[in-house]
């Protein structure tokens, strides 16, 4: 096609280029970080609302046309929904719902709280019950993208504010993810591939941990797979409606997790490829406006690019930049430690790791080959190849991330997209293998086994524990290869049966007991500490108390007044004023103490130390690690202040008129608002 000619005659393309330029100027040039902050504060909620509403509106005719909710005719029409439901339940039943990654999940909850109550995307910093309603008083913009908090805020809007709404969302997303993976697998290589994809994902304890948590990882996976499926539809239909849905899905995916913006690469390549093969741009007027929807991403980026602290480099000593190639080798060792751990401490799935890392090189080769001859590829193959590029870019980025160590409890969740890629790689490669003769398959299977053994031999670093894999997994792998040659049914190819059997063995031998124990959640005691805080709140339902805690947001998001330790130390007078006037029925202090291994003596950690002026009485105490104790104390006195106001004796209410009483009330109320912590 002649690009100049098309550009000259296609007004929509002209507008698209203009809006793209405008988006770049507005997003990166026109506004200072402070102005960007103002724009995000006032318009962030409405932009994401508009984008989501537009996406749903675009999706509506597509869904009505394809009717994915109708069951296929035949006796096993219920099989896929039953599989998804059963696997979803298996992922959800082993671990208690809770906030697993602190403060990440609480920050997201805080943003959803601001979006629900005040329709701005700010995390509350202070919140108090002033006259009956718990009001958010101050807030700040968080670095995390807005899509997940927005969805949680919609749940708050429809069913009332409660922190647990995020668990409801993640529960729904768990089933949604499995359903989408089934669809993706089915599109790639048939129903058996869909079943295998679902079973493989179900064997991932990390997914179970996040399904019962408050994070945005599930939504990220759902959006990745959803975008992949919309990409397949667009590649087949090649119409403007499908393209618009795909692009809007991409926009929302980019606002789900920071690094998911990389999936715009396959989306963009796919769109350009379709335009190229159609010899004209497929454009609707609505699509022309899509570049402007990336403004929040750009503005968000601008705001946090100005804040060095937002990368949290200080949390990992020895790093001075967030991304560098030099981090890759160290990270890779940690990745292997994560993927091939067989102790259950790292929430990995051995069956995904084993099959996935065998399939991954073949998948990459297949993708390169497919991209090289796109004209012969089916739409599904082309889209799978494009998304392989996206997954590869995503993986590469994480490999170069300064904190990309997957065996770190806080970072494990970042491996979820890679785990998803491994699952899809198995499905893609198996889909290719079923097309070739059984003897070739046997040869390739043995080759894969040899490659796996060689890999283990060549990388004898301590984290690599391939040789310590449970014997039954290896045996199953060998059996699978043998069975592949021996059995061949017209309906269920033996390769799929073998892979499904292997997944089942991996699930029951390793994943299920790992999920049941969920050591990986227990080891991260910060999460358990948060659960303990929630236990305290449940035991004190009146929520009429103040908590002094460095992690004040955990309380505020549960509608309990809280202030950080530093604030209490800096403004002792405020605490005193409220203590004297019984603004709160009780004052509690949350502290973390270190146990001296030699003497057993307890000492308050620096960040939790209120100093000698605050007299505390231990109230609740729990040991979370052998050398760490968490304690909630009751504040009983403050040195340097009387328990009654020191000002001159107040006039008697009896001698005051109604107007004078009201005046005194108003004056006190003003003081109260000014002097709340």
């Amino acid at each position, binding site marked *: 096609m002649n690009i100049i000619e098309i550009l000259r005659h296609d007004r929509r393309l002209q507008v698209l280029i203009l809006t793209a330029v405008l988006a770049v100027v507005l997003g990166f040039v026109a506004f200072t970080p402070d102005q960007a902050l103002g724009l995000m504060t006032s318009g962030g909620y409405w932009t994401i*609302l508009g984008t989501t509403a537009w996406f749903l509106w675009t999706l509506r005719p597509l869904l009505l046309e394809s009717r994915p909710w109708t069951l296929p005719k035949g006796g096993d029409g219920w099989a896929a929904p039953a599989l998804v439901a059963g696997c979803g339940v298996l992922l959800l039943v082993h671990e208690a719902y809770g906030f697993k990654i602190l403060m990440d999940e609480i920050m997201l909850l805080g943003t959803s709280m601001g979006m629900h109550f005040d329709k701005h995307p700010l995390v509350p910093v202070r919140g108090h019950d002033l006259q009956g*309603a718990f009001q958010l008083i101050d807030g700040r913009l968080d670095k995390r993208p807005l899509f997940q908090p927005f969805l949680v805020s919609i749940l708050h809007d429809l069913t009332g504010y409660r922190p647990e709404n995020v668990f409801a969302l993640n529960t729904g997303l768990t089933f949604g993810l499995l359903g989408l993976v089934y669809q993706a697998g089915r599109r790639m290589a048939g129903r058996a591939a869909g079943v295998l994809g679902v079973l493989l994902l179900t064997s991932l304890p990390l997914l179970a941990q996040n399904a019962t948590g408050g994070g945005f990882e599930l939504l990220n996976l759902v959006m990745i797979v959803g975008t992949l499926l919309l990409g397949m539809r667009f590649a087949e239909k090649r119409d403007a409606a499908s393209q618009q849905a795909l692009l809007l899905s991409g926009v929302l995916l980019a606002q789900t997790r920071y690094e998911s913006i990389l999936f715009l690469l396959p989306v963009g390549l796919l769109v350009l490829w379709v335009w190229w093969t159609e010899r004209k741009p497929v454009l609707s007027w609505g699509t022309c406006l899509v570049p402007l929807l990336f403004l929040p991403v750009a503005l968000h980026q601008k705001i946090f690019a100005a804040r060095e602290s937002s990368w949290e480099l200080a949390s990992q000593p020895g790093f001075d930049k967030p991304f560098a190639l030099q981090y890759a080798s160290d990270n890779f060792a940690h990745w292997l430690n994560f993927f091939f751990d067989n102790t259950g401490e790292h929430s990995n799935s051995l069956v995904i790791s084993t099959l996935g890392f065998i399939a991954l090189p073949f998948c990459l080769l297949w993708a390169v080959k497919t991209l090289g001859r796109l004209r012969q590829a089916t739409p599904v193959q082309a889209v799978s190849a494009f998304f392989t590029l996206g997954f590869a870019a995503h993986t590469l980025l994480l490999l170069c991330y300064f904190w990309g160590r997957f065996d770190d409890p806080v970072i494990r969740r970042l491996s979820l997209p890679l785990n998803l890629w491994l699952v899809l790689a198995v499905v893609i490669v198996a889909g290719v293998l079923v097309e070739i003769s059984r003897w070739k398959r046997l040869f390739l299977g043995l080759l894969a086994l040899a490659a796996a053994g060689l890999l283990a031999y060549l990388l004898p670093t301590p984290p690599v524990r391939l040789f310590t894999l449970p014997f039954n997994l290896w045996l199953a792998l060998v059996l699978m290869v043998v069975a592949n040659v021996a059995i061949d049914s017209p309906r269920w190819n033996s390769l799929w049966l073998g892979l499904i059997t292997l997944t089942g063995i991996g699930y029951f031998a390793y994943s299920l007991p790992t999920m049941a124990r969920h050591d990986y959640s227990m080891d991260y005691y910060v999460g358990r500490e948060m659960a303990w805080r929630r236990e305290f709140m449940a035991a004190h339902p009146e929520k009429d108390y103040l908590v002094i805690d460095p992690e004040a947001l955990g309380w505020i998001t549960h509608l309990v007044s809280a202030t950080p330790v530093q604030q209490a130390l800096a403004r002792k007078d405020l605490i005193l004023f409220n203590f004297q006037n019984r603004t709160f*029925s009780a004052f509690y202090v949350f502290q973390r103490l270190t146990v001296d291994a030699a003497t057993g003596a307890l000492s308050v950690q620096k960040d939790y130390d209120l100093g000698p002026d605050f007299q505390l009485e231990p109230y609740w105490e729990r040991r979370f690690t052998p050398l760490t104790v968490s304690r909630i104390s009751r504040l009983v006195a403050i040195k340097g202040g009387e328990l009654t106001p020191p000002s001159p004796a*107040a006039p008697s209410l009896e001698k005051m008129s109604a107007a004078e009483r009201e005046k005194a009330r108003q004056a006190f109320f003003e003081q109260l608002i000014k002097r709340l912590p």
Partner: protein
Amino acid sequence: MSDSAASLRSSLSRPATRAVAFVLAGLVAGYLGFVHFTVEEARNVLRHGGYYIMLVTFFCWLVAVWRQIRAGSAATASPTPAGTWAAVGLIGLLTVLAVTHETFRSKILYDEYVLQSTAYNLHFFRDNSAMVRGYEVRDVFVSLDSYLDKRPILFPFLLSLVHDAVGYRTANVFALNIGLYVAGLALVGWLGWKLNRWRGGLLAIGLLGSLPLYAQNASGAGMELLNVCMLLVVMLQGGAWLARPDERTLSGFVLGVVLLVQARYESALYVVPAALLIALGWWRERRLIISGAAIAAPLFLVPVALLQKVISNSPIMWELHENQTSRFSAEYLGGNLRAAYEFFTTPGMTRANSPLLGALAVAALGVVGWRLAARRSRWADLGPVQLSLLAFGTAILAVSTLIMFYYWAALTDPMSARFALPLHLLLVLVIVAAAAWADRRWPVSVVALGAVAVFILGVSAPKQSYHHYSHAGNDELAWEQRVVAARPPGQRLIVTNKSPLPWLIERTPSILLDRAKGVADRLADQLHMPDFSEILVTQGMRPASAEGQYQVPPDEVLPPWFKLELVAERRFGTKLARISRLVAIDLPADYQPSIAPAVGAAAPGRPGQ
């Protein structure tokens, strides 16, 4: 049938006979309602006969509606299944929104407790009165001292029916109001559908359901939603009467109006538009159509007149503020109008208003006003539903104007904001009517529906979540009840600084602080008796200066010889509420013993006492 019976029936069915009977019934009703009974007799008639008169009225209305539905269902067009499902979905969504954000509890102090208390006595004793004192006697909680309340009986009557059906529990009132909330949305959707098919129906449901004031009442215990429902019912029945003037439609309409009149005090005024619509029906048919229900209707209205008589002669029921001498006066108008303007235009979170409704209504009133003015004398040619809406809409405006002269009608006061509900209903219907006309050129209804959706997420949901307008007084009471419920089981006496009603309807004995001071000797005796496991006292403390320095207000101070032990204390706004346990009463030497009341003097509905 014998000849004489047939002849009697024939003569009774003659229009002239019926007209005479109707006039006679009106005269008798007027005499009984305004002349025959003294105030005290009227009070007794209402207390002991009110329930049964309402029972008969309500039953007759149900029969009339049933006959009307059976006769009329085939003649009218029906909504499409898709439109019906959309309406059901929208109602479901709005209902979830309404009931999940606010706690189920009374919203208006102490209006709603009085209604519940009346329902209690109607259920247990068929006595139309509210409790003042009550105690458990032989395992039955008996109302020992009651009074006829000023509030109309329809809502307590319906609540007592729910109690009759499922057993007494205070939560029944919330079930009733959720039902009324859903019914209100369904009825307004139906009316909207009649005005503009599915667009009108959905817009009407969306506009009314997104009004926080309407949603507030879904989780409350008041009679407001019933009033709205009855208004919608009579509007629809008025339209049905004009569409097909016959005895069936007239009976349903007339009896509906009789019930509406007893739904709220000021709803008595809706008799006027109803009479006009009936006259219009006669005029259109060129004959008098009078059904048996229409003849009986004036007699069914006698309790309304009697209640008015009792209220007018009982100034204590008016609950006037300090320095106020009359309930209605022009001097209240300025303040009330300012408050109304503020209520309809304030965009913040503190009011239960809908700025969207206010803004759309301004435009819609202009359109409808202009359209009506353009018709000049051809108003009677309007469709039946439009005419009914015009008549009742005018009456709603008149009632709203009247309320502006009322001493306690500032809509910015959370207690009186509910008076604006009928006006909001009118605005909703006016917007639907205006949009129906504008839809001929532009997709106004669809755009308005989009605006409603954004408004629900952007304004209604956070407003309902904060519900600043529902906290006054009720937070404190709910806290007291939670604290008491958390204490060990046992029978308690609550000496309250507010009203004993919230405790009495929970079958917990309660008296006011002033009474406690007056019967201190009896309380002192009770401390040594096994009847009460403990006596709890509720008091408040107020700041006396900018620094706080809390003190108990003089009217809540107990003599120092009441020995109290603090149980719980909590801040509500600037007030500290406290619950104490009475541990001793050291009566002073000069204390005069209280006079014991006559035993069983006021036990209602208990034969032999």
